[in-house]
């Protein structure tokens, strides 16, 4: 695109400098997400100018709440918008020294923002793992809205909600009466039905300090109420859960992962299903913070696992508002809602660890999240062959979600050290073990009857027929990738476990893995 014909002068634009223009609306969530990223661009040799399609009052509010540090101008009468004619907001225009458009970027797109930064000779500005999605479409540009055709200026809808700001308000301090039992007060107001440690100012400050961030930094907005999870409020919940201050290093990326739109914690929190977020820890952080990966891995065995899982749940309750006696409508619930955090027993895993399969380096610490049913045990103590052990596990895999339901569910197989040793000894690679489980998990077609209208039957026309152990079956999973393998547990006892999913894919919850910063 060349410079638009008859484009009105852009206020504040100096000729002879490269410039980045961004058109935005104050009430567009994608604009609220995208515009603060440009604060990281170093000005001087270049100019960054925001062009608001809304009135002065809402624009001032936008700049103040989101702490925009570059000049923002009003596009009065939407004249500049009409000249540049972006279809959506935000739209970014990179102009060369003579004002010619060199590049255009539409919507929020981390890779695109980093490419713009590179074109301006600067470092990347949009980190991959800050909890924001890689890409998010924007809204229709104000000048294309029918009601904007004959108005002088766009008018933002007033929804009465806070913008997606990066800095929140300081938490209120509550001074308890002398005769008030602080443990009882906190249990009643902010607990998970068990007593919590009162989050005193001193304890919370120590926790905040360990994070290395300012207390009012917003880490995530936690559904279903989209409460602002500031470092300070997360720290208060971490104190209540019994975390050591060092745990902030894991808790912050965990919350970013949970609020990643792919994980869909909103749905996970509000569903009538059993789902609870299962936290899986990998890498050097396991030893550094004493995460447990051996016997009783799902139990009350280690402070790190129990307190991190509990802190996470307390944040979901207190900041997100997903109370189990309220908006969390799970029919039966999940014991994992007290705490559901395991670490991989990488030392007993003969294959690559889980986070490496998920695309990270072995020496990188990582946290993964899966919307999980409670674990169901698989005992296999007599079969001598690894193949038979996998077959036994495939029978348990057939039952996840509901026995006759195929294609939609996913599952995590928690292999105990004794089982994985046998399977590995018999020559299976991790990929081959997964492929075997995929090919051998089937539901016999004779178990389906249209008349009974049992769950899973209505979609059988979409299922793939395979032969398992000589019998015609529907294949349980849509792909080998729907099955994940995680090694954990003690070295005695041939007990593995299968964990089913909630609704999966883009319409449900997708597993997410986030790196944890090095020590």
């Amino acid at each position: 695109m060349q410079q638009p014909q008859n484009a009105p002068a852009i206020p504040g634009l100096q000729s002879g400098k490269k410039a980045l223009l961004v058109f935005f609306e104050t009430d567009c969530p994608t604009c609220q997400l995208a515009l603060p990223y440009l604060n990281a661009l170093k000005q001087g040799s270049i100019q960054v100018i925001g062009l608001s399609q809304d009135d002065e009052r809402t624009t001032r509010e936008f700049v103040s709440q989101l702490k925009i540090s570059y000049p923002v101008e009003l596009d009065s009468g939407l004249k500049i918008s009409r000249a540049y004619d972006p279809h959506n907001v935000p739209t970014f225009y990179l102009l060369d020294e003579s004002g010619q458009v060199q590049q255009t970027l539409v919507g929020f797109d981390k890779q695109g923002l980093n490419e713009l930064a590179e074109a301006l000779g600067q470092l990347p500005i949009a980190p991959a793992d800050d909890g924001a999605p890689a890409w998010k479409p924007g809204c229709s540009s104000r000048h294309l809205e029918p009601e904007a055709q004959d108005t002088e200026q766009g008018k933002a809808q007033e929804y009465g909600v806070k913008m997606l700001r990066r800095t929140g308000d300081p938490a209120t301090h509550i001074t308890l009466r002398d005769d008030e039992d602080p443990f009882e007060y906190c249990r009643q107001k902010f607990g998970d039905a068990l007593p919590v440690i009162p989050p005193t100012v001193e304890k919370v400050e120590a926790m905040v300090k360990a994070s290395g961030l300012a207390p009012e930094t917003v880490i995530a907005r936690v559904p279903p109420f989209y409460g602002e999870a500031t470092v300070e409020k997360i720290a208060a919940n971490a104190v209540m859960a019994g975390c050591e201050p060092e745990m902030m290093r894991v808790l912050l990326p965990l919350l970013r992962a949970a609020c990643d739109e792919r994980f869909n914690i909103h749905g996970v929190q509000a569903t009538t299903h059993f789902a609870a977020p299962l936290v899986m820890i990998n890498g050097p952080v396991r030893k550094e913070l004493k995460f447990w990966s051996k016997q009783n891995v799902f139990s009350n065995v280690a402070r790190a696992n129990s307190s991190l899982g509990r802190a996470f749940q307390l944040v979901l309750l207190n900041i997100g508002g997903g109370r189990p006696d309220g908006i969390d409508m799970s029919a039966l619930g999940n014991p994992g809602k007290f705490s559901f955090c395991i670490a991989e027993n990488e030392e007993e895993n003969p294959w690559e660890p889980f986070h490496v399969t998920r695309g990270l380096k072995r020496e990188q610490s990582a946290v993964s999240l899966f919307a999980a049913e409670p674990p169901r045990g698989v005992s296999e103590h007599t079969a001598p062959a690894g193949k038979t052990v996998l077959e036994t596990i495939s029978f348990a895999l057939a039952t996840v979600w509901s026995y006759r339901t195929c294609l939609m569910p996913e599952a995590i197989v928690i292999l105990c050290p004794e089982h994985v040793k046998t399977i590995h000894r018999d020559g299976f690679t991790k990929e081959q073990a997964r492929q075997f489980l995929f090919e051998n998990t089937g539901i016999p077609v004779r178990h389906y009857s249209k008349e009974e209208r049992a769950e899973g039957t209505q979609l059988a026309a979409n299922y793939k027929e395979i032969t398992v152990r000589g019998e015609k079956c529907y294949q349980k999973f849509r792909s080998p990738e729907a099955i994940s393998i995680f090694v954990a547990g003690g070295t005695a006892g041939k007990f593995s476990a299968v964990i089913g999913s909630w609704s999966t894919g883009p319409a449900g919850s997708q597993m997410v893995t986030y790196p944890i910063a090095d020590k």
Partner: protein
Amino acid sequence: MPLTIVHPGNESVPKAATPPARLKSLAGKKIGLLDISKPGGSFFLDRLEEILRTKHGVADVLRTKKPTFSKNAPPQIIEQLRAMDAVVEGLAD
């Protein structure tokens, strides 16, 4: 000594919305029906649409559907429904 704690919860107060006045009659009104995409929702909403059209003389019925029950309705659907006089959301299972 009194103990001071840090509020660990969400302190933002959502702005309460005022519900619109109840319709005195459905005649001549535009009614939106939102299917949340759960199996069975269409049976209920099909019947409701029939009743609205044949017995209540509504001006129009707008049928909308969320792409998935597990997530919020996208803004485009909310915008469509904003133009209606009343909306019925069909939950199912």
